[in-house]
């Protein structure tokens, strides 16, 4: 819909300028090209890889190169290809329903991701709010501080948390020295450590969209609310928060989606009892060498994440239409 609008806009501008038909065609072509690039990107880096993974999920494991069958190649010509096509089956998906392990792993991952997202929002919102209200001269510096951690490897930053959280680590030493606790706290290898790790690692992804929506807000609205006798708390809930909602949603999605499939943070900071889908996938792929089942796990995970988001976006679009 918007693509057509851009194309029409480009071509109509060209007509107004009174250029030759050739130039008009050229402009339209460039306009199309600009639009087509994102689609090509999605095709090559999302759709085709997904189709390959989906295809593997319908195969059976084998001790061979590649380690599944059928390989779906044209070695035996077109008819051979179709014969192989008939060997595909949904057995691996049936298998996922037979062992409660997979269901539990999905649920645990979703819960951990949801809790972490809420925590990240609670920590990130005041930071973003403070940044948006700070004097314009120091905002670039604050923005820089949020982005700065990205300059160090993610893995090293997670490793650093081991040094902070372990029983003889910095945090415990500090708390013991100040006499706040008398016994070292066991934080490392627990769910608490996973939450700390995720909140820390994904905080910039929450702060940046929040900041961009809060910064655009017109603060005279708050002044107006104050003039009309609205207390600051209700002004926040009635004006600031609803206006920042697009930022809240974007931030939450940016944190929630990668957190569901998170593998490194639970592996390094969490205890061995943590059963998340990332680890289950690892086990299927590397320990069982079962590429088909691990592909099935990955496909379900993808559906689990994209379907609710698409439904949500549709509902939002419908709500916007109604507003108009």
């Amino acid at each position: 819909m918007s693509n057509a609008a851009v194309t029409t806009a480009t071509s109509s501008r060209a007509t107004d300028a009174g250029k030759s038909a050739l130039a008009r065609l050229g402009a339209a072509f460039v306009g199309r090209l600009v639009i087509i690039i994102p689609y090509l990107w999605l095709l090559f880096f999302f759709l085709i890889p997904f189709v390959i993974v989906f295809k593997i999920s319908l195969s059976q494991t084998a001790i061979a190169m590649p380690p599944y069958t059928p390989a779906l190649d044209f070695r035996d010509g077109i008819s051979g290809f179709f014969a192989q096509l008939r060997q595909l089956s949904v057995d691996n998906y049936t298998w996922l329903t037979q062992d409660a392990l997979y269901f539990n792993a999905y649920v645990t991952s979703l819960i951990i991701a949801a809790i972490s997202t809420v925590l990240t929002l609670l920590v990130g919102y005041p930071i973003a709010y403070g940044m948006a209200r700070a004097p314009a001269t120091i905002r670039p510096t604050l923005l820089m501080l949020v982005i700065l951690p990205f300059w160090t490897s993610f893995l090293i930053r997670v490793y650093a948390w081991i040094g902070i959280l372990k029983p003889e680590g910095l945090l415990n030493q500090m708390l013991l020295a100040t006499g706040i606790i008398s016994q070292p706290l066991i934080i490392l290898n627990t769910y608490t450590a996973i939450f700390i790790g995720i909140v820390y690692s994904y905080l910039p992804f929450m702060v940046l969209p929040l900041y961009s929506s809060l910064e655009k807000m017109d603060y005279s609205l708050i002044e107006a609310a104050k003039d009309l006798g609205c207390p600051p708390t209700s002004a926040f809930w009635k004006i600031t928060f609803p206006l920042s909602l697009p930022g809240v949603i974007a931030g939450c999605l940016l944190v929630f989606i990668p957190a569901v499939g998170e593998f490194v943070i639970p592996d390094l900071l969490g205890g061995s009892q943590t059963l998340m889908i990332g680890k289950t996938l690892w086990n299927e792929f590397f320990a069982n060498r079962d590429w088909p089942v691990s592909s099935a796990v990955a496909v379900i995970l993808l559906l689990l994440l994209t379907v609710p988001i698409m439904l949500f976006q549709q509902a939002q679009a419908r709500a916007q239409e109604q507003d108009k």
Partner: protein
Amino acid sequence: MTRKALWLSATSAFLALFTLGAHAEDRVVNVFNWSDYIDSSIIDDFTKETGIKVVYDTFDSNEILETKLLAGGSGYDVVVPSGNFLARQIQAGVFQKLDKSKLPNISNMWDTVLERTAKYDPGNEYSINYMWGTVGIGYNIKKVEAALGTEKIDSWDVFFNPETLAKLKDCGVYVLDSPADIIPAALKYLGLDPNSTSPDDIAKAEEALLKIRPYIRKFHSSEYINALANGDICLAVGWSGDVFQARNRADEAKQGVEIGYSVPKEGAQMWFDQMAIPADAPHVAEALEFLDYMMKPEVIAKSSNYVLYANGNKASQQFIDKAILDDPSIYPDAATVQKLYTVLPYNPKTQRIITRTWTKIVTGQ
């Protein structure tokens, strides 16, 4: 950028591609080995002696290596998988048979090791041993002495006996996150065949491991190196070489942490890292030259002296540092070697049972 400049850069990119192709006629060998696993002067010497350039790349898990090999077209000429991975990869058709006529130094190899590697690679047709070691118990000498009243650990009993392990719970116990290493050890401790694939036996091993599960802080296959070296834990069931690495790091740090390693008297698993040539290797002749060079006694001894692992080259032993050769945790005495066992790869069905059992032990689900 102008159109002309674009054309120029495109042409130069093409030219670069072609020249790369031409350079491929220079002799090259692409080696993919474990990280921290060679004295780098060996590579320089090899290039000096033969004129073959070595492109040396490293990995840190068999799984990563296997994934690359099974996907095909890895471009590597020499890779170093562990024995049980090698066996399955041979079955999958990943490797090519070695042309022994190009490997005169093969006569230096040690029959005791050859006998065992033949279980993974019948007739040793596809691979050559690089290093070998054991799966045993690494421990913090002072902490264990404080908890148990003795610093002598020589039996699996310290790990599989719930009463003993309970005493070590608070100072920390780590275990390899690797069912193929731990379940056979449990079977051995129970007096069963470590290679058993019977579901009954696996269930017995599961029971034994569930009894000690509450006293294990973490299952992880690499973190224990740092944890031991820093004195964060007092016991880890791990690979010999990793424990030695922890011992060296602890010595360098001079924080008073002393690490010991024990090969349990009931018997421990022996592992082997084997050099092999992928079937689709682009530089086979160079790869064979590299393998033959690595079988020179003084060369492989230099590697052992550096990485502190035992190798499968009998003739190299005269060049190995006395301290390493006499260390029973690296080169166990003949009687202990007799008790060391090897574990064969599981078939896919058993592998699934083993992985599922392991998930139950580790996560409780």
